[in-house]
């Protein structure tokens, strides 16, 4: 009998791993190198993966650890890589409520790494809190509060959280989203 090689299942997670790697590295080339490193480590240690547990979370953990161990080495001399949060450069929608994709990206890049990570995993890639917590090796409660704080910070950066009710109607919101898709 030719049972499917369980390692083949790694492939179906490559798109999400690439997306996560781009979020971490902010660089498409480095991201794919990181995914490659992740694959080498995952296949090399595949006997440590317990079948029936969450392969996606396991792969994300490997990728994440590879990224941070590399970065720890690189970062020692650079100053405060985590501290570059919430700059003064808030991105405000135009009068007509336009908010460009690039402006969203700029705001997103300003988030702390752990916040960007939480939003990428949960908001963009659709992981559950539990799965994301496993991937990042933190408690579920920590992941939830990171996600909430990340949303708040991003809303602040995008000026979506004024005390007064936002002037955007739902249809305007939708049109912003639709416009940004054409970027």
């Amino acid at each position, binding site marked *: 009998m030719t049972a499917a090689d369980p390692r083949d299942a790694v492939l179906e997670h490559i*798109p999400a791993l690439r997306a996560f790697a781009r979020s971490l590295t902010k660089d498409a080339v480095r991201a794919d190198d990181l995914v490659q490193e992740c694959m080498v480590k995952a296949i090399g240690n595949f006997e440590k993966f317990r079948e029936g547990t969450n392969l996606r979370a396991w792969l994300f953990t490997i990728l994440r650890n590879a990224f941070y161990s590399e970065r720890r080495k690189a970062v020692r001399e650079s100053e405060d890589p985590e501290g570059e949060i919430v700059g003064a450069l808030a991105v405000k929608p135009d009068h007509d409520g336009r908010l460009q994709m690039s402006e969203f990206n700029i705001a997103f890049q300003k988030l702390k790494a752990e916040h960007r990570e939480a939003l990428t995993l949960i908001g963009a890639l659709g992981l559950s809190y539990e799965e994301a917590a496993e991937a990042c090796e933190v408690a579920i409660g920590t992941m939830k509060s990171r996600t909430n704080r990340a949303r708040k910070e991003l809303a602040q950066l995008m000026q979506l959280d004024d005390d007064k009710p936002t002037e955007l109607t739902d249809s305007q919101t939708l049109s912003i989203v639709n416009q940004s898709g054409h970027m």
Partner: protein
Amino acid sequence: MPADEPVEKRSDDLIDENLKKAFSETLDEGVPDRFKDLLAQLKQAAPQKPSEEPEK
């Protein structure tokens, strides 16, 4: 009318839509050959251990 809808909720939705858009390009690219080839190489270098499935 959605005037009563909490601002937070609408802003969360907007954020999620933008997040999905931001990564959709990468996700839509599927699996580049580079990674398919790499998996094939890695599998070849370490053949699957025939332990877990009992022989039929």
